[in-house]
């Protein structure tokens, strides 16, 4: 229906030429519901105004509506298109309605223009529409300045619909509205969209996911990614899309909010190459030289030289066997890590939780390249790390850093702060003495420690626990790593110092752009910090997924238990009673069988594989049962009924 091709819009300003849209291509089929998301300034509204022929700047490229080129239209032709074929609900920035005419008059106006003189008809149609959008008769004759923002928005929607257009463009239809009015409007628009083609422009992701089926992500005038709305918003492929989603709070958000690092680029002097590269954590040299094209990928399209968010660290079927003294001095073996697999993506925080003894630390050491697994492979950016030699191995050490569980034991007490932080640089042979000192001071600055000579010459025993932990972080950061593995970084700290420590880690992760693999036994903490969470039990990953999903709908009984036992300020004494059942055959079946309240006979025989379920992965035969239990949760049902 609408075919936008290589659309380019520029404005001449005092500062020079501003490129608002750059080679934007988008197709909208009849009846389709398409969304456009992006930060303010990304060119969303300009795109909509271009379709309406209302943009002020120079427009190049092509916009075809049912095969007709819209950019060639003259003003007289536009009068016949606007409102009759394409209608737009503008973003309500106040004064969207003329203050000197009543609402009804203004809603009727476009109808009377098309059907001159038919006042009676116009009145009927306008009042029906106004009623449909939820306005009362006393609003009809009101002047716009006596109406609330939500009422004006409804009026604008009615006005856009009066000539029954085919394509409806909604620019921020729900922004600046309270939650209830927004919910009502979304339902109304959803109803309207049943027999129309709609284009929704919004930074409000919750509106976009409800109203559209396909979405394009716009950044600095370029489309970064397109795809089915739901999968795009839940599992974004482009680093920018992910950053956008990460900054958006929803009711189920548990993680602390994080803005997108860096500043929105100037449109007068746009960055060369990919417009997002200055803020991207995985940018290569190529990204700053060449602009990536929008390439079809799976269900959508993606504009990224790196093919979207890359996988930094991947462990597959990892097994680590340790010997242990058995009866009568016999040597027996046990698997601390028993077939676990983990993937860590660029710029994300993955939290690994599990009770002590579940093999978390061993897994961390394996991933960090300091404990070779008995079986399985670890890949860092597609290179198997245990097969690396010489220079490459040294290089890996630089980009993969680990924070050990206990800072007191992780430092030499005979070295001063300065030497502790400088040592990795020295080993790697980076820079000369002077630049190294500079690097040390910078790293200390990042973690909020003084870089003066007094502090640099302190010994570890002269530092507090929090300070020492920071020193170890500085020691890791001085290498500018891509991956930081943190093993219980805050277990020994009190709540306040822990809060500061984790805030610092999250801030550094966002600013420095490394991926963080956080190991903790505290599920509440994991939820506050992690983008994704993986649950480990007896050396296996039993569940994994986006934090908000796992916390809302745990699919594994073990996760459910951990969640129930997570710290809370309730007086009730936890009534944890782990059932212990005996399996017919040891070594077979689900590892959690012994404690599982939902287990069946199948669980005792067959070990469940890690399977995808929605956006989560779970290793449980009974996941469906747990899912059902979650869905029956009356609280959510009630909310759904109200809306």
């Amino acid at each position: 229906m609408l075919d936008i091709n290589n659309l380019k819009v520029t404005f001449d300003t005092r500062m020079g030429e501003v490129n608002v849209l750059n080679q934007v291509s988008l197709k909208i089929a009849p009846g389709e519901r398409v969304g456009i998301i992006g930060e303010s300034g990304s060119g969303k509204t300009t795109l909509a105004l271009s379709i309406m022929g209302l943009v002020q700047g120079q427009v190049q490229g092509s916009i075809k509506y049912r095969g007709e080129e819209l950019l060639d239209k003259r003003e007289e032709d536009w009068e016949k298109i606007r409102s009759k074929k394409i209608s737009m609900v503008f973003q309500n920035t106040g004064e969207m309605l003329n203050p000197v005419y009543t609402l009804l008059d203004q809603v009727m106006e476009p109808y009377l223009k098309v059907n001159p003189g038919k006042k009676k008809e116009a009145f009927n149609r306008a009042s029906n529409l106004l009623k449909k959008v939820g306005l009362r008769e006393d609003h009809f004759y009101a002047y716009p300045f006596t109406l609330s923002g939500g009422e004006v928005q409804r009026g604008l929607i009615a006005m856009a619909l009066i000539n029954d257009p085919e394509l409806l463009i909604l620019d921020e239809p729900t922004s600046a509205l309270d939650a209830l009015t927004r919910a009502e409007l979304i339902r109304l628009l959803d109803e309207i969209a049943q027999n129309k083609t709609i284009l929704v422009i919004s930074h409000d992701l919750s509106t976009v996911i409800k109203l559209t089926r396909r979405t394009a992500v716009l950044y600095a005038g370029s489309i970064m990614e397109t795809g089915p709305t739901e999968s795009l918003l839940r599992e974004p492929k482009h680093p920018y899309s992910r950053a956008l989603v990460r900054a958006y709070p929803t009711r189920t958000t548990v993680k602390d909010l994080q803005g997108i690092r860096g500043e929105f680029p100037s449109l007068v002097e746009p960055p060369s190459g990919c417009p997002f590269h200055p803020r991207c954590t995985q940018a290569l040299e190529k990204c700053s030289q060449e602009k990536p094209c929008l390439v079809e990928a799976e269900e959508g399209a993606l504009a990224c030289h790196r093919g979207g968010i890359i996988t930094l660290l991947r462990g597959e079927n990892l097994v680590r066997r340790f010997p242990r003294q058995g009866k009568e001095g016999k040597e027996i073996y046990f698997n601390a890590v028993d077939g676990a697999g983990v993937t860590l993506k660029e710029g994300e925080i993955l939290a690994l939780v599990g009770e002590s003894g579940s093999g978390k630390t061993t897994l961390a050491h394996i991933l960090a390249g300091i404990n070779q697994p008995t079986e399985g492979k670890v890949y860092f950016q597609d290179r198997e790390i245990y097969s690396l030699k010489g220079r490459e191995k040294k290089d890996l050490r630089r980009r993969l850093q680990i924070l050990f569980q206990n800072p007191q034991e992780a430092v030499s007490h005979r070295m001063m702060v300065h030497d502790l932080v400088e040592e990795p640089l020295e080993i790697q042979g980076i820079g000369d003495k002077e630049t190294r000192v500079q690097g040390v001071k910078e790293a200390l600055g990042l973690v909020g420690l003084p870089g003066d000579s007094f502090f640099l010459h302190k010994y570890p025993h002269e530092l507090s626990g929090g300070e020492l932990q920071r020193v170890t972080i500085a020691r890791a950061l001085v290498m500018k790593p891509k991956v930081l593995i943190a093993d219980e970084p805050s277990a020994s700290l009190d709540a306040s110092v822990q809060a500061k420590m984790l805030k610092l880690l999250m801030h550094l992760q966002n600013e420095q752009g490394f991926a963080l693999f956080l190991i903790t036994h505290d599920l509440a903490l994991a939820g506050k910090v992690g983008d994704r969470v993986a649950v480990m039990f007896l050396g296996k990953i039993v569940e994994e997924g986006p934090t908000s999903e796992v916390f809302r709908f745990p699919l594994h009984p073990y996760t459910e238990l951990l969640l129930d036992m997570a710290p809370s300020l309730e007086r009730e004494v936890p009534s944890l009673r782990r059932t212990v059942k005996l399996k017919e055959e040891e070594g077979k079946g689900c590892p959690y069988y012994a404690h599982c309240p939902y287990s069946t006979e199948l669980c005792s025989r067959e070990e469940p594989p890690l399977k995808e379920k929605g956006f989560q992965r779970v290793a449980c035969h009974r996941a469906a049962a747990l899912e059902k239990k979650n869905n029956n949760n009356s609280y959510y049902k009630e909310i759904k009924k109200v809306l």
Partner: protein
Amino acid sequence: MKRRYLDYILALVVILSLNFFLPRLMPGDPLTAIYGDALLDMSPELQAQLAERYGLEGTLGEQFITYVTNLLRGDLGYSYYFGAPVTEVILEALPWTLLLVGSSLLISTFIGVLIGIESGWRHGGRLDSFLIVAVMFLNGIPSFFMGILLLLFLSFQLHLFPLSGAVTPFSGYTGMALVMDILRHLFLPCLALTLVQIPRNFLLMRNSMIGVIRTPYILTAQGKGLKERVIQYRHAARGALLPIITRLGMSIGLLFTGVLFIETVFAYPGTGYIFYLALGKHDFPMVQGTLFFITLFVLAANFLTDVISAKIDPRLREHAYQLLDRT
């Protein structure tokens, strides 16, 4: 609206009091202030008579009451230059001024607003640039100079219009002929006054239009698929008109003083001309009376403006006032 009435009554009281107290606050006695040196030539009887006439006997309070009662009776004093009561002289001149001021006000506002709308709608365009230059040129010419120029070319050289007065004396015209005669006399002073008035209206309307064009509701109107003319006049000009109307009230006051020069140049027998004559002859009762009348007119004009503004802009109506106060 009640508050507005109160404002006007207050303004009137202040003006009346000023009119009363100013001569009395001047050094020397009020009669000297009013008549100046002319008082010295008067006999003591006449002086006493005048003092009585002006209510200058008794305490200040008593005097004020006499002054107010005289005003209420329409007695503004006696003009010795015209040899008639001030009220009478003013009422005779007033219709001419009203005709001149009214006609030029209507015409200049209409033209100024119209070209202002066109200019503002396409500001930066060719028509706009031309109009700006032309109007600025016009703006540089003072009203009396404009009058002299018109008089010189159109009357003196081309003999198209009469040189002075409001009617041809002793012509005995009646009916249509009289109307035509009045119009012929009116044309030049009216034209001079109109030309001088146009720039202000034009510039204000143009500015106001440019402001309104940027408001979001113009974008809404465009998105509705309306014709450009409709957007320009129904949506933009209507909103932009408000400052013009507000200014109309003020410009009436300015016109009454501006008309002074024009009436003098064309010897047009309106209040301005009378004022000029009275001023020259130190006829202070006449001057005070004329000023009082002008004040009354300005107040009335302002009041009318308020009423019309409220009609045009619903935001200024009573309930809207409360709304605005709250925000």
